[in-house]
């Protein structure tokens, strides 16, 4: 009976639940898989001390029937750009750390995020996956041979990246211009009248705010969102620390 009601009046179905302040299903995030691959590149001429970090989000028809095969669609490109902005603004890693020899050689980190199962809220999932992958990166030591001017890579000595901040993204879906839901699933995103993503780091600094159109929000609501993002950051940070501790023996 509930299932029939759901198809006929999806919005009403959700409204009933929202009144009770609960959700009809367990929160499910789209699964993500990231890896970062290291490669050598020449640093850009306008910033000879910096390396590159190249993020790429891949939303294939594998994860949802919404996506078509072929060149990256709109959603994938927006997500890739969002991740690039988060990396840039939150300064997870200093690009200077990636430089091996000023003006000549620097590391290029390719971050490939592949979505395996899309159930809404990809931006949050992307940010976590990226953070976890960056924590896992091990860069081998590189020395430039003075005589031959070639790089010598020492695979035996590897060092981890210096992660400065831990940005955590929190997404909200706006319903009826008033109600806000944290961490929307795909159905909720589809029915929502707008979305908002807030990226905070551990010191309560705002790294990125992403509100692509949709219904308007008052300033008070926005403040409310940001305080919720701070609490979410604490929860997520605890979870992440547990995971990283269990990953330690390597």
């Amino acid at each position, binding site marked *: 009976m509930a299932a029939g009601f759901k198809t006929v009046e999806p919005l009403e179905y959700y409204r009933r639940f929202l009144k009770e302040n609960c959700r009809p299903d367990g929160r*499910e995030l789209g*699964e993500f*898989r990231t*890896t970062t*691959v290291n*490669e050598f590149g020449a640093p850009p001429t306008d910033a000879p001390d910096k390396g590159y970090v190249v993020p*790429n989000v*891949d939303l*294939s*028809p*594998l*994860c*949802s*029937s919404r996506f078509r*095969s*072929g060149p990256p669609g709109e959603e994938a490109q927006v997500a890739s750009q969002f991740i690039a902005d988060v990396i840039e603004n939150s300064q997870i890693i200093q690009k200077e750390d990636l430089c091996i020899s000023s003006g000549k050689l620097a590391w290029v980190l*390719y971050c*490939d995020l*592949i979505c*395996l*199962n*899309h*159930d809404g809220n990809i931006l949050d999932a992307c940010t976590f996956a990226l953070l976890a992958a960056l924590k896992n990166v091990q860069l081998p030591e590189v020395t430039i041979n003075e005589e031959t001017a070639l790089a010598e890579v020492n695979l035996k000595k590897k060092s981890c990246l210096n992660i400065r901040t831990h940005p955590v993204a929190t997404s909200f879906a706006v319903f009826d211009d008033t109600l806000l839901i944290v961490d929307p699933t*795909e159905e909720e995103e589809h029915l929502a009248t707008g979305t908002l993503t807030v990226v905070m780091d551990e010191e309560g600094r705002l790294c990125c705010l992403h509100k692509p159109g949709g219904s308007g929000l008052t300033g008070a609501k926005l403040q409310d969102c940001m305080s919720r993002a701070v609490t979410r950051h604490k929860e997520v940070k605890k979870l992440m620390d547990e995971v990283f501790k269990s990953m330690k023996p390597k």
Partner: protein
Amino acid sequence: MAGLELLSDQGYRVDGRRAGELRKIQARMGVFAQADGSAYIEQGNTKALAVVYGPHEIRGSRARALPDRALVNCQYSSATFSTGERKRRPHGDRKSCEMGLQLRQTFEAAILTQLHPRSQIDIYVQVLQADGGTYAACVNAATLAVLDAGIPMRDFVCACSAGFVDGTALADLSHVEEAAGGPQLALALLPASGQIALLEMDARLHEDHLEQVLEAAARASRDVHTVLDRVVRQHVQEASVLLGD
């Protein structure tokens, strides 16, 4: 060939297996709730994920609809991080298209397409880590995913690769053995009837040796079938427990 010895005098391969021995297979069905059918398989270090959507209405041009059967659409994609060096194009390149076509041909032989005319069945396969035998892993994962989706098939489709070194046929080649450059054969088998759905080999092999290699691949495919059968039964058992039967 100097350096790596693919088959030692005692009959052990590089990773310690015997000539006809398969790598360890671990598989799970129903990994994603979003898709109609999904499966994940690990054959040694090769990891493949298959997702099935369908049968559903034809996407795109209605003209492609077949009046008496379903259209099977396969896409093969290998992740940029699946190989040692970063792959620039995960899909759309020639090898991926060829693999997609081979998978489609394999599954058109196995799926009972007459039961779903004018509709489309999508099979997406993603290789997460490639360590040899990617075609075989894809076929095995896709079989489990199609079964998970409840699409009727004639039989399981089990695949395995085989090679030939020093007069012995090797089953289930790893990347090291494939890269060595000897003849390689990929076989997709329907185990109950013993029918071959797909057979592919592009290398020089004397016809006297063909039967030996084919036999090794067929035997290995049947071993794969035993494993997959067990996985399916276990999955069904777990599902019926959850449903409270």
